[in-house]
């Protein structure tokens, strides 16, 4: 059913349909409404979830880790400083292979304090071992929350999954979202099968023991194998979900008018929608431009991205965070992908949208128009919409 709802409500609806055993959450702008909606569902008896209101995000994710190890299906949501507080525990959730699904309402990090969107919170968790997915719209946030649950719980994966949605731009904006019926959504998500639950007192187990230099390395190698298993499972889940929802999800990224594009933009999240409008405008003027919008950011689909970009003359990679002292994190992913390629396009790294700075269609049109004038890849950051 098509509804005009906010991104918050879209994510909360997916959570209601998933109906986890435990949600432990602490409010933070721009995530709070997700927690508020879910608390209403619990209060109104729509879900049988144990909602744990905690005193901080560190405690929120710690409670999630405990509940997941005990054998529960577990979800949470946060943003910005909240994720920063969670990061210590996020590494533990990944190392313990706990399938916790988290909505991340992307927001800048302090200082200076700012409540608006950028991706510095997601980048902070880049190497945590959590799978990270980016949504362009409230619809994608809803869809990928359902898919994330399946992905996290797949026996080949068993990892925490973060679904990123741009703070305010997606969380607080009313958009059209096609919400599946509860029955269809619940059948898709399926039953949760706990493994080695702490609450199974007949078969006592130890979670989180010490690992000395003789085993730690092998355990981390096993964790790498788990995240390397994600891409194949991701494609399976997309195929199944596309069949039930009628929307077309295939691949680790959306390739928009990319096939014959000379000049390509790579960008995460809601700005990819704005980029599509820029692509359409320039195509109408005869410029062969295209867009690559990663859905799956961690693990990064290195080979597929290289294949998709190797025909381009130049590629603009847009990072919505600064990785201080070096190039952007997404740029480095793209550079890593293209380095082995025999035909490497010119790569240009743009930083945009920090702290909620608006990025308009015209800003992205200008980026495309600048690309043909840049003749070589250089380790230089360029900035969109910055006063200097």
């Amino acid at each position, binding site marked *: 059913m098509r509804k005009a709802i906010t991104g918050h409500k879209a994510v909360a609806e997916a959570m209601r349909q998933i109906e986890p055993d435990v949600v432990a959450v602490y409010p933070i702008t721009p995530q709070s409404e997700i927690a508020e909606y879910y608390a209403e569902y619990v209060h109104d008896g729509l879900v049988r979830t144990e909602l744990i209101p905690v005193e901080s995000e560190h405690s929120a994710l710690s409670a999630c880790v405990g509940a997941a190890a005990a054998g529960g299906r577990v979800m949470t949501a946060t943003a910005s400083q909240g994720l920063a507080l969670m990061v210590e525990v996020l590494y533990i959730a990944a190392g313990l292979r706990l399938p916790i699904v988290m909505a991340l309402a992307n927001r800048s990090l302090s200082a200076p304090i700012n*409540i608006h969107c950028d991706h510095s919170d997601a980048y902070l968790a880049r190497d945590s071992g959590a799978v990270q997915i980016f949504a362009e719209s409230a619809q994608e946030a809803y869809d990928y929350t359902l898919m994330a649950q399946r992905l996290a719980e797949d026996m080949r994966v068993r990892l925490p999954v973060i679904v990123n949605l741009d703070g305010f731009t997606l969380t607080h904006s*009313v958009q059209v979202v096609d919400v599946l019926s509860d029955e269809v959504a619940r059948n898709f998500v399926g039953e949760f099968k706990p493994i080695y639950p702490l609450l199974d007192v007949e078969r006592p187990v130890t979670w989180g023991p010490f690992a000395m230099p003789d085993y730690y390395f092998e355990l981390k190698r096993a964790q790498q194998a788990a995240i390397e298993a994600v891409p194949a499972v991701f494609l399976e889940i997309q195929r199944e979900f596309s069949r039930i929802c009628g929307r077309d999800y295939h691949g680790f990224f959306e390739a928009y008018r990319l096939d014959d594009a000379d000049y390509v933009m790579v960008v995460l999240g809601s700005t990819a929608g704005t980029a*599509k409008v820029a692509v359409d405008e320039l195509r109408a003027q005869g410029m062969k431009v295209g867009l690559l919008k990663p859905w799956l950011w961690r693990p990064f689909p290195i080979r597929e991205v290289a294949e998709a970009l190797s025909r381009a003359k130049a590629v603009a990679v847009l990072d919505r965070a600064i990785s201080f002292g070096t190039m952007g994190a997404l740029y480095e992913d793209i550079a890593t992908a293209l380095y082995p390629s025999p035909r490497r396009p010119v790569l240009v790294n743009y930083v945009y949208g920090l702290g909620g700075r608006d990025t308009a269609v015209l800003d992205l049109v200008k980026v495309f128009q600048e690309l043909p004038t840049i003749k070589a890849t250089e380790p230089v950051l360029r900035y969109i919409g910055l006063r200097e």
Partner: protein
Amino acid sequence: MKEIRWHGRGGQGAKTVSQILAQINLREGKHVQAFPEYGPERSGAPVRAYNRISDAEIRVHSGVYEPDIVVVIDETLLDSENPTEGLKPNGVLLVNSACSPEEIRARTGFSGRIITVDGDRIAKETGTGFANVPMLGAVVAVLGTDYAVAEAELREALGGRLGAEVLNKNLQAFRAGYEAAKGVTVG
């Protein structure tokens, strides 16, 4: 695609009616967006909210810079917020005011179509106390949206939050705002 910018003050319900408008437009089969502009909100501070309405899927996620319609819920913002900034010359400026359009034209210098609706008087007479709903009625009229579709959606949107008596007052206020602005549509 049509773009709307609402000017109000914190607590006057600009965001609420922009969201209800999105639900109305969806009900008539349109693609929609509604989003507020968030700053350091507090009661009484100037706030803005936006709508996009389109027959095709809306992909753009940037701010609105050149609206087709500007709605001013609080007349005092005419002097402080420059509400006609970026308003298309063939657009519509819709102001909650007891003044005539000519008086608003003299104050704003806007050369396009100006409609004044005395939302405060409607709010007082119907007993709702808020000018946002009459202004929503006026926007629905300017957009040329089917009245019955809009009223049904408003009834559903407010029905969950308000008792029957207050709901009826709001429906009256909505109707009065609609009637006051009827006849001027945005092509």
